């Protein structure tokens, strides 16, 4: 898997984790499970460290996509970008091949991640 793609997926997932942990519903479910959460700042630190390891041009694009669409990396399932449903080129149907490079959707511009 392409290293930068892996970092982008982690960055986006971390973002979701931060949002959910601090959300009303997220807190409610943790309480129901009898779990306590301490040190959310660790997640922000991890996010910052991750961002610093991503090339500025890619990171800038990531943030623009997040701001515009709410997600910058879109999964590819059954040969389609799951964010905009456009088909990806047939030569990229195998996930190990698709994830080898940092690719973007021809239609929506999101980074693509084959799952």
């Amino acid at each position, binding site marked *: *898997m392409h290293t930068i793609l*892996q970092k982008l*997926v*982690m960055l*986006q*997932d*971390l973002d*979701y*984790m931060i949002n*959910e*942990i601090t959300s009303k*519903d*997220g807190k409610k*479910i943790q309480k*129901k*499970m*009898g*779990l*306590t*959460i*301490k*040190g*959310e700042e*660790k*997640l922000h630190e*991890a996010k910052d460290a991750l961002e610093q390891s991503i090339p500025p041009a890619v990171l800038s694009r990531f943030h623009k996509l997040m701001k515009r669409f709410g*997600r910058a*990396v*879109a*999964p590819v*399932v059954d040969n389609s970008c799951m964010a905009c449903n456009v088909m990806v080129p047939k030569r990229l149907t195998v*996930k190990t091949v698709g*994830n080898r490079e940092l690719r973007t959707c021809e239609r929506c511009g999101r980074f693509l*991640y*084959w*799952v």
Partner: protein
Amino acid sequence: MKQSELLRFFHKDLFIPALKASDKDGVLKELAGCLESEDKLYKTSLVYDLLKRREDLGSTGIGGGIAIPHCRSIAVRKLTVLCALKPQGVDFKAADEKPVKLFFLVVAPPHDINYLVFLGKLVELVTAKKINKALFNINSFEDFKNLISGVT
């Protein structure tokens, strides 16, 4: 979501009767690795990393020998649940400090609307008195399925 609907999220292929790992990190890695080997996710390290970060904020060991590690990730296509047993128990830093013998790994894609509801219902189910003790006596997915079917 009704409690009786929980069973549809469990699958025979995602049931581990005896985990090999004997420590917390090893268990998380083995659980995530099992999802990849069953083709439920691409790249174990993505989910493992998230699970570990979640555990760093506080253990998902809910007490009574049960842990529910959970996270959202685009690495999975749909809400995926894995049930695993470790009869000898593992120190999972659970709330009651008891070793954890039963694990439910729950991973869902970011926009799955069932995720939080599922977690809530799962906690209700596994902590219910009429099922709790029996859960530690199951040896197979069939046992698990029969037990759950019997109470939901």
